[in-house]
């Protein structure tokens, strides 16, 4: 019962945070919304007894990633008016299509009664939801087992991909076009 109440509250926090992130005009407030989402998720993990995941979520996402976001936002300067021009002309329709597809997929699944695809719950033969097993004490071992032993290759591949992506981001960020001509500079 307590878990359900907590879950509802936290879900509200998560959804509210996500909405405020998407809808917030001010990038700092958007970042704060995302932080709330991350926190809500972390607490949900705690309720699920996945302490390690929760803590890592906070350390990595809230502690490092979001801080970097904020750093970038502050450096770029938040006082400037946000550019409302859309870079891609077909952005809106594309988004609509994607949203429609997701909604359709979820609706189809719900209508067809395949709940377990969404919730991931195992359904016993009796049609009852399987009992969630007690998380093993010290989920660190379990995660370590799967990451470092079982899924080592995908894990390392992901890490390499992330590094490549970040290097690329840095290169792109610091790319500056050459000055056109001194004449334009003088006219400024």
């Amino acid at each position: 019962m307590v878990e359900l109440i907590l879950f509802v509250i936290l879900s509200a926090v998560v959804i509210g945070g996500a909405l405020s992130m998407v809808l917030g005009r001010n990038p700092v407030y958007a970042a704060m919304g995302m932080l709330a989402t991350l926190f809500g998720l972390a607490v949900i993990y705690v309720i699920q007894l996945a302490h390690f995941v929760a803590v890592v979520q906070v350390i990595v996402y809230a502690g490092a990633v979001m801080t970097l976001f904020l750093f970038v936002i502050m450096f770029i300067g938040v006082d400037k008016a946000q550019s409302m021009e859309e870079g891609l002309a077909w952005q809106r329709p594309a988004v609509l299509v994607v949203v429609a597809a997701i909604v359709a997929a979820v609706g189809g699944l719900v209508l067809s009664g395949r709940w377990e695809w969404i919730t991931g719950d195992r359904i016993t033969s009796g049609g009852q939801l399987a009992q969630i097993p007690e998380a093993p004490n010290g989920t660190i071992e379990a995660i370590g087992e799967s990451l470092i032993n079982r899924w080592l290759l995908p894990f390392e591949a992901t890490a390499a991909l992330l590094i490549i992506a970040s290097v690329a981001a840095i290169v792109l960020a610091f790319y500056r076009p050459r000055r056109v001509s001194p004449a334009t500079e003088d006219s400024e």
Partner: protein
Amino acid sequence: MVDERTERGTTELWVSGTEEPDWLVAGTDEGAQLMQKEETVERTIEQRGTRVIDDFVIDDSIDSDERMVVNMGPQHPSTHGVLRLHLELEGEIVRKVKPIIGYLHTGMEKTAEELTFLQGPTNVTRMDYLAPLHNELVFSLAVEKLLGIEMPPRAQAIRILMTELNRISSHLVAAATNGLDIGAISMMFYGVREREMILAFLEKVTGLRMNHNFIRPGGVAADLPDGWQDDIAGILDRMPEALVEYDQMLRYNHIWRGRTVDVAILTEQEALAYGITGPTLRATGCEWDLRKSEPYSGIEQYEFDIVTASNGDAYDRYRVRMDEIAQSLRIIEQVANTMPLGDYKADDAKVVPPPRKRIDESMEALIHHFKIYTEGFKVPEGETYVAIESPRGELGCYLVSDGGSKPLRMHIRAPSFANLQALPIMMVDSMLADTIAAIASIDPVMGDVDR
């Protein structure tokens, strides 16, 4: 974009970057003063010939929109009083600096025209309040030059003794504030602690801790008090230990070196072009000390060395000051050992008030006494410029007399005033934190700047 920039120029934040009331913008619009001409990258690098911290971001394709204008001061903890710096920042990097001064303008040169030559020292002593005795000395020397009177040797020796002590106390404050600005808070207390010892001696001699009104045209106001040798011996005893302590606190410390070495570099050519004198000039390697090149008040009798350094960075300026303390101690020791006996005021009844006993004895003395204290003494017509080496550089006094008892014009050439011009060139493209080190390293005294 141009409009936006000029508009921004006028409405910059005032104090500690906080809100500005509307009436204030109308009050004084110093912000309207435009910055100096923009410096191009090439010129900066060529001019400074130094390491540029981020060779990457300097790129004039960055429009000035990305710059943040920050007003440092006038009320800011590290501007040594009421200096105001107009900084253009790119992140943490200072792109342009303009010092704005005048927040302590006291109109002393005007007041000097209202005061007699006898009262004059009370005025000039308040200019450079860290080296009041130097101010009194240069004024007195100028007046004496116009009067054409010679000082007895004891007066000269007392003057040298007092000014060199004052130099030490001034350099101690420079070291203390320099330490405080870079975050070494204990240095502030240690520096002032030793200064307190010197001030105690000055107070014993002159009765005041600062703004002494002790060196006057015609000599010094009073003789050294009984037992002064012991106090000097105490100072000479303690100071070398203290200097070792300071060195251990700062000079060898690698954080300190990191904060000052290669920071705020000034080359010799720049220093000379900008009329910069004193330790700031000597730190660039220029061997120029008025105590040697134009000796005053008999300082040529004493042995000492000109302290120089070669890099012209903040560390060198600090080091030159610290080493000058040691040299001043040498002079003080010699003065104390060879202090001549005799009169300590010139033998000129028209200029120097008579001894108190003579007032009772002689009618002539009484008349002189009255005349000197009411209308003052007359100084022959003429103009002269006298310069001495104050702790901050060449302290000059340009004095014009029209033959009356008040100066027609008294101008003090303030070393800090000229030295402050070094700030923009030494700060460009340094970090924000380095501006603090730069200000502290040239040790400006705003009273001296604004007068």
